[in-house]
């Protein structure tokens, strides 16, 4: 019964533009009997930077995995008018392969396998290119993970928990790279974060996902001022 309601309910902030790069309509994803996504409608426009914030277990990673085809939706629709690349939670590198091999495998679907554009984006990777990826620091690994995704020449890159386990200074460095990538190449970014401050700072629009539903959406600056969001995600600790 509850689900039916959510399916019929229009998304809080109006409709999804027809020229959206990536959009989901009333997406439902289940793990067995457990509902992880319960009618999620969201979109990312061309060249846009969008944040997806929410507590642990809200379904953020599930959404990304569904966009990438790892999970199969039980209901709903996904439209993707471009190439999406996914930087998974926890980096998920190939630890025994070198940095360069990790990057090159990002181009597995086709296109140039030359990793040098990634060395331009992240100059410190050039020096590490023959090192095993498993031996790098967390920040370096995150750069490799982003670089590997970018090797697919995506129109939109979805980054899951960019800041996880990284020192704040490293996070802001990598975040700056994402912003400049977005400015220079027009690559759209969907940034999944528990660190809402960072995510709302660098994006223009944002969604709040709670218990598998979008509970709030709007301009990032507005959400950052929203008392409820402020209390739950910016004030103190992140609630469970």
């Amino acid at each position: 019964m509850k689900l039916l309601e959510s399916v019929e309910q229009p998304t809080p902030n109006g409709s999804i533009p027809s020229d959206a790069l990536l959009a989901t309509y009333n997406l439902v994803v289940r793990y067995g009997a457990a509902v992880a996504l319960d009618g999620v409608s969201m979109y990312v426009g061309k060249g846009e930077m969008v944040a997806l914030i929410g507590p642990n277990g809200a379904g953020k990673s599930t959404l990304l995995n569904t966009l990438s085809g790892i999970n199969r939706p039980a209901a709903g629709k996904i439209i993707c008018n471009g190439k999406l690349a996914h930087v998974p939670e926890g980096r998920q590198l190939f630890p025994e392969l070198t940095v360069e091999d990790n990057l090159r495998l990002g181009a597995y679907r086709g296109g140039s396998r030359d990793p040098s554009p990634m060395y331009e984006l992240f100059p410190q990777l050039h020096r590490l290119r023959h090192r095993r990826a498993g031996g790098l620091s967390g920040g370096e690994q995150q750069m490799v993970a982003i670089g590997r995704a970018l090797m697919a020449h995506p129109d939109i890159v979805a980054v899951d928990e960019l800041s996880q386990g990284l020192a704040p200074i490293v996070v802001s460095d990598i975040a700056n790279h994402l912003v400049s990538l977005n400015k220079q190449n027009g690559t759209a970014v969907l940034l999944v974060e528990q660190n809402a401050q960072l995510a709302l700072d660098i994006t223009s629009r944002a969604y709040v996902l709670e218990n598998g539903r979008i509970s709030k959406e709007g301009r990032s600056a507005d959400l950052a001022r929203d008392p409820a969001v402020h209390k739950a995600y910016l004030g103190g600790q992140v609630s469970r």
Partner: protein
Amino acid sequence: MTAFVEYLMTGIARGLVFALLAMGFVFIYRVTRVVNFAQGAFAVFGGFITYSLLRAGVPQGVSELLAILAAALIGLIFGIITIAGDLPLLASLIITIGLSILSEAILMLIWGTTPITYSGLTGHDFVILGAFIQRQYLIVVLASLALFALVALAFGRTYFGKAMTACASNPYAAKLSGINVKRMGLVAFMLGGALGGAAGVLITPLSPMTYDADVSLAITGFAAAIVGGLTSPGLAVIGGLVFGLAEQFVAGYWSPSNETAVALALLIILLLWQARRMRLEGLE
């Protein structure tokens, strides 16, 4: 001394053949997590197919190559039967048990129960330190070393080889990069088939092949693979040599009838050692 050299040579040659089987286990396990019980069957098919091709007048080298290709094809078919679709691992493992007895039935139907053999590439036997060594032993050593080098090159140097390593290393990330992990699993089965087939082609001239040799070949190959925790091809080669040498020295200096029991006891010890290692490293 003469006997020692003879055991050593024989042990190395047979050990390398076990290593080929072991590497088949390793590649299939790494990509699919399936312990392929039918691994020994590839070798039996390899031996019997070579035998029939030779009798049909096909030249030696060609027969052996064709037999290896046929084994690769059988590997592919076994792979499809084992992993296509969404089967739980347990089901896949049991299916490979079924494939092992299916192979025995097919082999017995086509070739009967009489053991077969054929002579390897012709040429003179030679003498090392007074020991008489069949030329085939040298061929086995060279051929398997060449195969190991080929496999190492394919994995270490080619993009496809690295994609396969990626599947073994992190299947989820491999999928995100667009690698079809299932298809890579089938390639691994083909590779396992080819390596197993090569093992059979090489060992049949040394010791006659029977339709039901697959279980003992599989268990020796598995034992060798366990040395590298089922995931390290390099350690699997060492494992193969350990078993080849142990078998020859036990048979030679003690009694041939203890050969199997010692090999199996060694396997159990290895399993225990690996279990302990895993516990120590918290890998459980």
